[in-house]
Structure formats: C-alpha cells, structure tokens
C-alpha cells in the first residue's frame, strides 16, 4: 500500500450512500474488474430493495418472479420468524444468472457494503455465470426471466381452469421429485427457454385448431400388444433406464393430462436451471470472494476507499471466510467461501511465487506469472469436484488441518484414515472431491422397467452406495407422489451397487383422485 498511489479522492465517506454513489462505485469497480483483471461479464442491473422484499426473494429461491405455491409461503414464514427473532441475518445480496445480470442490494447496507456487494455479485458471480462451462451448457441466461414469466402465467391459467387444488397437488408431486429431474449428461441440443415457451403455445394452438368433438365419441383403437419377450426393445422405446424421473413421467405417464405434463416440464426446467449452481458452489463463491477481495484492496490502494471503509470491509470479509474447526460449536460443514477463497489465493500464489512443493504438484501453473489468466481459465473449465481434484494443494490441506474420518456403522468406533501429511494428501483430495460430486450427494435412482403387458407397474431402482439406504419416511412420501403421477403401482427396490443384492423394497399404490383431476 504505497502512499504514492493515493492520489484519487475517495468514492464516498461515511456510511451513507445515494444512487450516484452506487454508480460511481460500479464504474470504479468495473475499471478494475474488466480493465485490470480481464473479467468478462453480462451487463449489470442493480436493484435496490428493502428487507421485506429480500425475504420475498429468499422464499422464491432468489428469483424475481415465480409461480405461486404454498411451499414458498412456508419458507417465507419461517425465514421471517427467524429474522424477526434475530436468529438469522439476511444476505447482503442476491444475484441472478440472467442477461442482464440482476443483483439485489439491500437499502440497509452501508456504502462500503454496497461497494463490496457490487464487486462480489455484479462482477465476481457475474463473470462466473457467463464463463463457466456448466452454466453455458445448462442454463440460458437470456431466456430465464421470460421463461419464468411464462411459467408463472401458465400456472395461474391452470389454476383458473382446473382449480388451485389440482395444480397444487401436481406441483407438490413435481417438487418432491425435483432432485431427480435433471439430465446429468448433455444432449446435442442447446437449451433455449424462449423456444420452450413458443413450442408450448404452438402446440396448444394446434390442439385447438384440430379439435373436433366428433372424434371424442369414436371408439378407441384396441391397445397394441407388445411382444412380452422383447424386453430390450421395450426398454429402448421407453428410453430406459431413465434417471430423469420427471422427464420420464412427462413423456410416458399414461394418465396425465397435457397441462399436467406441461407443469411437470416447468418444474423440470427450473431444476435444470439450478443444476449447475449446486455443482459449483465452492468455485462460484471462491471466485466471487477472490474478486471482491482483489477489487476492494485495489480501490483502497488507489485511494478510492477510505481507511475506515477498508476496516469495515475487512471485518465483513473475515466474517465471511471464517472456517470454524470441526469441534467448534459453530461448525456446520466446510465453508465454501473460506475454502474457495483460500484455494483461489493459493493458485495466485503458486503462479507468482511457487515453492518447490508447488512445482512438484502443479508443474503446469507453478511460476507461470499471469495468475489472472490461469484463474480465468480455471473458472471457465472446472466444477467443484474436478477443481478440488486438480487444485487442492498440500499447503491448503495443512492450513485447514483437513483429516478424513471413516464411519462404518458396523464397527464400534470411527477411524482416522488420513491427515494433512505427505501420505494423506491424495486421499484427502479425493475424499473431499467426492463430497462435492453430485453423483455422490444425491442418491442414484433410476426408472428401470415398466410392466406394460401386465399391470403397468413402474419399477424403480435405488443403487445403494456404501450401504446407505434412503430415509424411509421421506422415500415413502415421494414414492406416493410418484405413484399418483404414474397412475399405477410403483415398486422401488434398493439394490446394492456392488453386489446387486436387493436390500429393501417399497411398493406404493396411487391414491384415488390424488391429483384432483
């Protein structure tokens, strides 16, 4: 922090701010973020909101507009109660992966916090959204707001036509299966939510045009009998096994009405939109935290931040990147801000002043000099799991004192498998990466077969990893929803992934009139 740089006037003094302050901060930050750090961002739209609106945004998973459902009301009620009781603070910001990128900032924030939030969300997250391959592949920043508007209106229209209860029942079922409503592997066609909306409108128009009441009374064709031996063929036609359960329901559930399929599709699209966020929490927050730290430090160097503002920033920053130890009462898992920020800083250090150890572990980037270029490349091409596998350095493992504990329900005590030493680095890296792998964190559930010739029973498998079964009560409730959607019995087998032994079976029959239609 050499004094010679302090030539500029501070952007603001004291805690108060007005819109011109926000504009000035944004411009100064943009200069650094784009000019010096080479970030590539969507145009920004910054929206100033109050507490109540922040709670609103919370309850509709951060989206500015959303269809109506009681579960959002439930979350609102709980968040509000917690907030009013002082048990939980509110986030300083919410940022939406859209083009233009919308960041919400709270009116209660001080000027320093607004600058921090702009650097963090409007540039850090924004850059990540625009450049990370997962977001590029899975989400459509241009179309999301329009699609959500379509979804909201469509749900509203369905409520008017078919009644709130029927819509609610269907959305309940959809939400229960939301965690299994994504395609994990990309298909050829790119996502385009605008097309989605258009497609639905056209299909409805077509239906209306060709509607002819006469045909309703014509006796239907006799059901086509499938050759019972052609199991393989049947599975191929139905595209089984299917892991995207909602997609499978939407396409093949025999008893659903078109509007019900469309609602499932909406739930599915939303799940798909949020899919990359779950896989890049660590990197996304790491990136944004690193960016805001860099930018704020730089602003202070340039004399655009007063010392007081800098202290306020550092205080808030250290709170954010605080990682309590495992035996601390405050411990609740690894803080993605802390680990992400530490790893980004570490990568920068490796690029600029590598140790012998770094050269050994990271020959590709050690001493490469241009840290920002390396980081930008990483932010574009990795997700949490691969990022940790590749870049969790021994230094970070030592710094956090990471250790691996194995808990086998069959043995009386837990066992330490690896600690932060030469022998343990590899193991720790792999175990941690696995925790961030969605393949491990959500149970592997697939639709494997349908008894088309017989009673149309749907057969679903849970491939059990490490002998951890599904939480039984929840599983039963979800299966009930699934059976309601399917319209016939559903059989779930929990199958051990290594031995193929069936560990547990659940069978559920649909409830009459459960979907209210």
């Amino acid at each position, binding site marked *: 922090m050499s004094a010679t740089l302090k030539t500029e006037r501070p952007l603001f003094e004291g805690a108060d701010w007005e819109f011109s302050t926000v504009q000035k901060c944004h411009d100064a930050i943009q200069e650094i973020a784009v000019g010096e750090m080479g970030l590539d961002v969507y145009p920004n739209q910054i929206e100033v909101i109050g507490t109540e609106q922040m709670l609103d945004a919370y309850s509709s998973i951060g989206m500015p507009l959303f269809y109506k459902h009681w579960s959002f009301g439930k979350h609102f009620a709980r968040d509000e109660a917690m907030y009013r009781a002082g048990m939980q603070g509110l986030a300083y910001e919410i940022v939406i992966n859209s083009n233009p990128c919308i960041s*919400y900032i709270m009116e209660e924030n001080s000027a320093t916090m607004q600058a921090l939030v702009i650097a963090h969300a409007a540039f850090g997250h924004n850059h990540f959204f625009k450049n990370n391959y997962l977001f590029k592949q899975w989400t459509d920043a241009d179309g999301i707001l329009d699609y959500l508007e379509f979804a909201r209106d469509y749900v509203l229209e369905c409520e008017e036509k078919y009644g709130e209860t029927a819509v609610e029942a269907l959305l309940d079922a959809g939400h229960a299966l939301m965690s299994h409503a994504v395609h994990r592997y990309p298909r050829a066609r790119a996502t385009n939510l605008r097309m989605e909306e258009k497609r639905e409108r056209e299909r409805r128009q077509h239906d209306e045009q060709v509607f002819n009441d006469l045909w309703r009374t014509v006796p239907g064709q006799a059901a086509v009998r499938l050759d019972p031996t052609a199991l393989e063929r049947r599975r191929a036609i139905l595209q089984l096994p299917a892991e995207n359960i909602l997609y499978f329901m939407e396409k093949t559930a025999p008893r659903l009405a078109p509007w019900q399929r469309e609602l499932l599709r909406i739930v599915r699209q939303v799940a798909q939109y949020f899919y990359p966020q779950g896989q890049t929490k660590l990197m996304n927050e790491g990136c944004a935290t690193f960016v805001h730290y860099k930018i704020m430090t730089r602003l202070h160097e340039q004399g655009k931040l007063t010392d007081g503002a800098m202290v306020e920033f550092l205080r808030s920053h250290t709170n954010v990147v605080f990682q309590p130890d495992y035996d601390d009462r405050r411990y609740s898992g690894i803080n993605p801000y802390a680990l992400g920020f530490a790893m980004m800083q570490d990568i920068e250090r490796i690029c600029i002043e590598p140790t012998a150890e770094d050269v050994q572990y990271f020959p590709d980037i050690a001493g490469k000099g241009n840290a920002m270029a390396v980081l930008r490349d990483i932010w574009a091409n990795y997700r949490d799991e691969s990022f940790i596998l590749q870049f969790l350095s021994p230094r970070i493992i030592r710094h956090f004192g990471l*250790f691996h504990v194995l808990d086998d329900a069959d043995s009386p005590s837990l066992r330490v498998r690896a600690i932060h030493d030469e022998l343990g680095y590899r193991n720790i890296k792999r175990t941690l990466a696995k925790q961030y792998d969605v393949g491990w964190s959500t149970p592997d559930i697939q639709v494997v077969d349908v008894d088309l010739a017989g009673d149309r029973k749907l057969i679903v498998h849970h491939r059990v990893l490490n002998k951890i079964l599904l939480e039984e009560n929840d599983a039963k409730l979800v299966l009930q929803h699934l059976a309601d959607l399917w319209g016939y019995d559903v059989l779930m087998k929990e199958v051990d992934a290594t031995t193929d032994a069936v560990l547990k079976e659940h069978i559920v029959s649909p409830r009459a009139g459960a979907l209210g239609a």
Partner: protein
Amino acid sequence: MHIVDRRLNPGGKSLANRQRFIRRARSMIKKSVHEASGGRSIKDADSGGELVLPAQGVREPSFRRSASGGIRDYLLPGNKEYTVGDEIPRPEGGGGGSGSDGSQDGNGEDEFRFALSRDEFLELFLDDLELPDLAKRRVANTESVSYERAGYSVSGNPTNLALLRTVRNSLSRRIALHRPKPEELQALRDEIETLEPGERRRALEEELSRKERRTVLIPYIDPLDVRYKRFDAVPKAVAQAVMFCLMDVSGSMTEHMKDLAKRFYILLYIFLKRRYKNVELVFIRHTHTASEVDEDTFFHSPDTGGTVVSTALDEMQRTIADRYDPSAWNIYAAQASDGDNTASDNERTANLLVNKILPCCQYYAYLEVGRDIEHFPPGFMRRDSDLWQTYEALVASGAPMAMRKVGHRRDIYPVFRDLFARKVGTEIAAP
C-alpha cells in the same frame, strides 16, 4: 449499468404464497391456535404471535439418503491431535462425526415455527365464530406518539450514545489493527530504563517510538466505532376504555357456566381492543357480597353464599367513582349470571341500574348462562329467572341495555353478534 429502485414496488409479493400455506396447514394451525389461546388470559387472547406446528403436515419430502447406517466418509477441518489409524469413539446420538456428509437441505426439522400476525390469529381464533364487521366507530381514536428503543444507528443525539456498543466496536477495531496496549508500552519503557546505552537499547527505543506513533495513529475511539441508541416513534392510545366483568360466583354457577361467561368476555374484550388501544379490565364477582378480584380468582376460585346482585352494582359504582371518571373513560359492562337473585333485591337492582349505572355506561350487556339446553327434556319450558324478569321490564321501558340467554358454547358468537347488531340504534342515545 442500470440501477433500479425497487423499494417502492408494492410489497407483500409473498402474500399469495403465505395464504396458500396457511390454507394448506389450516387445520393444524387452527388446532395450534386453539391450544395456544387456551393457555392465554383474556388480555393477550388476541395478540397473535409465534406458533409451533409439527413439521409432518407441511413437509416437503425428497429422496435423500438416510442419516444413519452404512459406511460414511467425513472430511473435517481443524485436526489437532489425530494421526492416521486413530480410533475415535462414536459420538452420542448416532449420526457420527459432525454430519459434513449431510444432505443439502435435509435439516431434520421436526417442528416448524412461525409467527402469525394479530389479524391472522384473530381470523383463525374466531374462525368458528366469525367475527362480523362491527366497524361502527363511536369514539375517534386520537393518537399521540411515544418513542421506543429500536436497535442502534450510526448517527444520533449525543445523549443517546450507546456506550457499551461503542466501546465494544472500538475494542474489536483496536485488536484488529494491533494498537499497542498501555501495558506493553510501559513494559518497554521499563526495560529501556534497565538497559545500558547500546545496540539493544537503541532498538528498543526505536520500537517504543514506533509503537507510540501507532498509538497516536490508531485512536482509542474512532468516529467509526460510535453507535447511538435508536428510537422509533410508536403511536400511543389516548382514547381509553374500561370493561367491567360482573359475575355471580355463588354455588349455583357451574364450571360450564363460567366457561361460557369467559368466552363471552373474551369476545367483548377483543371487540373493544379493536376500537381502543388501551382497554382496562375490572373483575367484580359477587355472592351476597361483592369484591373486585384479579382474573384468576374471578374465574377459578369458588365462593359460597347467597346471591345479591345489587352488591356487584354497588361495587362497580364505587370503582367508577374512584378510578374511572365517565367523562374520560368509555365504560362497558358485561354481567353474567345464572339468573338467581334474592327476591327482595330485584327492585333495588333495577333502581341502581337505571339511575346510577346505565347513565355512565357506554354499553351494558346481561348474559344469562344456562345449563346445556340439550339436558332438558323436549317440550320442557323453563321459567324465566328473577333477574331476567326484572331486566326485561327495564328493557321494555327503554333502558339502553341488552340481554341474552346462552346455553351452549356454539351460541356464544351468534348471541354476541345479535347483541351488537341490535344495539346500534339505541346505543347512540347513550354516549
């Protein structure tokens, strides 16, 4: 870049969702409301507040792994003493480790807490009673403003300086910026004293002067630390009302009758609360003597003796004269009784009412509580009670009061509404 000010957007975007949620959980919430109101006294019967619901009914299930059993890997930060191969006894309460493998949102919530607003609470509380629109204001609510503490602010009046908060901030800032402590400086000075001039002494002196400079640069209290107590303006009620609850507690009044009376009082209280911010309650119970008691004694402790209604009216009159000047207070009275009265007292009671009590009352209601009507054989006609006959004569001669009979819990509300609906015309005559 655009900046959009959304603060002025209409709020309550979640209202529709909240209503859906309340509708969804209605039966549970209602049960919870009734449970909550059972334990409340009349005074806070309508205060809204936090409810606890079992999470089961508003659960949003998803496929997730069970929290117990199987083989799990935990990766934890902050290793202090463990080396590879150490055995750690399994922590109590199953699970194991600290649950770093937990599901993303699978907080195993087993109950769900949330706050109902006063109106939502009332609506649910009166749901099977249906509070009608009684919004005929007779007394304007003039309000003045008082100030209440509401957190801290960074600006304010010096008299409102929050010393503790300010010093706490200053302390953390001093720790963060490594401001030298006076003891440190003193220790340095002492050490320098003991040293001969030389290399070491010069170094220490340099350090001392560096630290002293730092002490000056980093102030003990910086304007940044200063916090003020914040005060919010809270409207204060000026219009005030007092509600007299009169009840016969002689042996003939059963628990059932008292319960009916209590329900009626609650309704009346809520009703008054909607008009006056400030409602006081006076409980007067009587047998052949009357006394003012607290709520608990009023409803719960039995008394024995004859029944002389006029004693209660005497007591009420005395209390009004003592504490509630009719020109400053809106006076409401509700009398509950099973209708018994000593025959010789009826005339005195009527006189007292017409001449003393009614002229200074805003409203007087008489509620005759009976046994559950169903207990009477069909076709059985009850004879009107002494008190009823006395009062009926008064009402017939145009006295501004209302009277009803109630036999069952479900009648309370219709009777209540009926009372107020009928009063509108006559009430204006009795300001």
